[in-house]
């Protein structure tokens, strides 16, 4: 699925981009465009290729094939021009530096930065401005890293799993802060493995797994695609796995204590065919997959294939 966007040229483009690390293809022929003003969630399970995608976009990694454009040129040029701010996954901070010094450094590097006061206020760091970074808690560090991404007032904000280390409350406050920053014209791309986070924060969700694009649309569209999935459970007696796997719309088959569990994108078609080919099938149960489960199916089905 993809959405047709009637907007000016995208500010960031992936055109047939592939990146391999040894035997592993981290990003596999990915094509994607991001428009100005969008808040885009890059959604996928661990190992889906999210971090590599972010690194390619920032020019930290270079593609084996394909072209990446950022603000009309190579990523390195956009980064050098100060149009991008980023929060990398688990990036450390230099011991002994004070919070305000680090923000001051980033401000001095960008052409049109936020004021120190605004940066501190947006990230609730005013009382900690003079503290050395090694004396901060994990959550406070996370806020400093957000502050460093925001301080340059970049046109594009890139966040890689920014809330991974935070509890539920801290996650909510984090996204409130980001929303406080994002206004017309600013673009945000964030990687996450949480569907509910993508749903709550983004206006566009790009699902990847195994380095490939699986779905791309509004959160509603992506949820609808995931939610069409159901599981069918049936007594295993006299049913071969092969028969079940060959039923229409079936994606995976699992055997568990005398029952077979199928996941399917079209339960009606699957059941019709099942009863035709195996009229003796009994103990049928159909369950609509919950959102999380459906999303996992959507991603695992692709992610699992080597």
């Amino acid at each position, binding site marked *: 699925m993809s959405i047709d966007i009637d907007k000016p040229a995208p500010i960031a483009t992936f055109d047939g981009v592939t990146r391999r690390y040894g035997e592993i293809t981290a990003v596999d022929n990915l094509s994607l465009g991001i428009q100005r003003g969008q808040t885009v969630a890059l959604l996928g399970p661990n190992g889906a290729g999210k971090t590599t995608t972010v690194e390619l976009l*920032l020019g930290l990694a270079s593609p084996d094939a394909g072209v990446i454009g950022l603000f009309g040129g190579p990523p390195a040029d956009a980064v050098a021009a100060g149009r991008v701010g980023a929060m990398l996954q688990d990036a*450390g901070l230099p011991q002994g530096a004070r919070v305000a010094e680090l923000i001051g450094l980033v401000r001095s590097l960008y052409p049109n930065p936020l004021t120190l006061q605004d940066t501190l206020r947006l990230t609730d760091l005013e009382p900690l401005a003079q503290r050395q970074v090694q004396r901060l808690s994990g959550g406070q560090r996370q806020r400093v*890293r957000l502050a460093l991404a925001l301080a340059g007032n970049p046109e594009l904000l890139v966040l890689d799993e920014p809330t991974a280390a935070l509890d539920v409350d801290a996650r909510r406050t984090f996204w409130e802060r980001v929303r406080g920053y994002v206004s017309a014209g600013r673009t945000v791309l964030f990687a996450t493995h949480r569907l509910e986070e993508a749903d709550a924060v983004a206006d566009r969700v790009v699902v990847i797994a195994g380095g490939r694009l699986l779905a791309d649309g509004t959160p509603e569209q992506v949820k609808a695609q995931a939610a069409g999935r159901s599981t069918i459970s049936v007594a295993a007696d006299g049913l071969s796995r092969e028969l079940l796997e060959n039923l229409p719309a079936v994606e995976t088959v699992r055997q568990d204590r005398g029952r077979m569990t199928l996941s399917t994108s079209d339960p009606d078609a699957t059941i019709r065919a099942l009863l035709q080919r195996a009229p003796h099938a009994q103990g049928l149960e159909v369950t609509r997959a919950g959102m999380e489960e459906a999303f996992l199916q959507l991603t695992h089905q692709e992610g699992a294939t080597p």
Partner: protein
Amino acid sequence: MTRSLTYLWLEAKRQWRNREILLFRLGLPTAIYLILNAAQGDSPPTNPGGRMVPIAALAAVISGLAAGPTLGEERANGWLRQLRTTPLRPSAAVAAKIVVAMSFALPAIALVAAVAGLVGDNEGTALDWAGWLRLVGLMWLATTPITAVGALIGLTFGGEAAQGATTLAFVVLWLGGGIFTSPDNLPDTLAAISRALPSYGVAQVGESVAGGHSLPAAALVVLAAWTLGAGALAALAWRRVLAR
């Protein structure tokens, strides 16, 4: 340029306010000098630099290698990658570590010289003011190849490994490099290796100034070769880091 200087200033403040770093880089060599001086006070040194020059060379080695652990740690914890998402020129980060290492080497050498001048047993030197300044200044410049070795270590090894490699380099340069004992006391092969190490070059420069001689050509060649060699390897390692 301004951006690089802003980063350099932050990096300098960050390291200079760290008490453990100050104690290790500035306090330790001076303390070793004082201990040696007290222990061997009744046997005055015979070489022109006395006990001062070898310990000043030790100070040069300690501070000179400082870029290694810092670069290794910040490569491992991702701070250097974070900087690469900003408009700062990536090489400015490496350059700053080298400059800050040099900023410790100068006072570390000067402190040993000053203490030796004050409490030393004459040290066999008869230097005037200009001579002392030349001694400290030239030994400091001779530290350059050691900072290149530090950068090479930090760009080749990450995190703990960089710390370990720095310690190893420190031991080799200290024990093998004519600081702990003169190459004259070593078997031929070891003596040749010792004379080819940059720490020996630093000590030789100091000794020749203290003795009122011109700078020894062999030591200058060793220092220049290490600067170029380690510098080129560090540049290669840096390109590999960037091309990940």
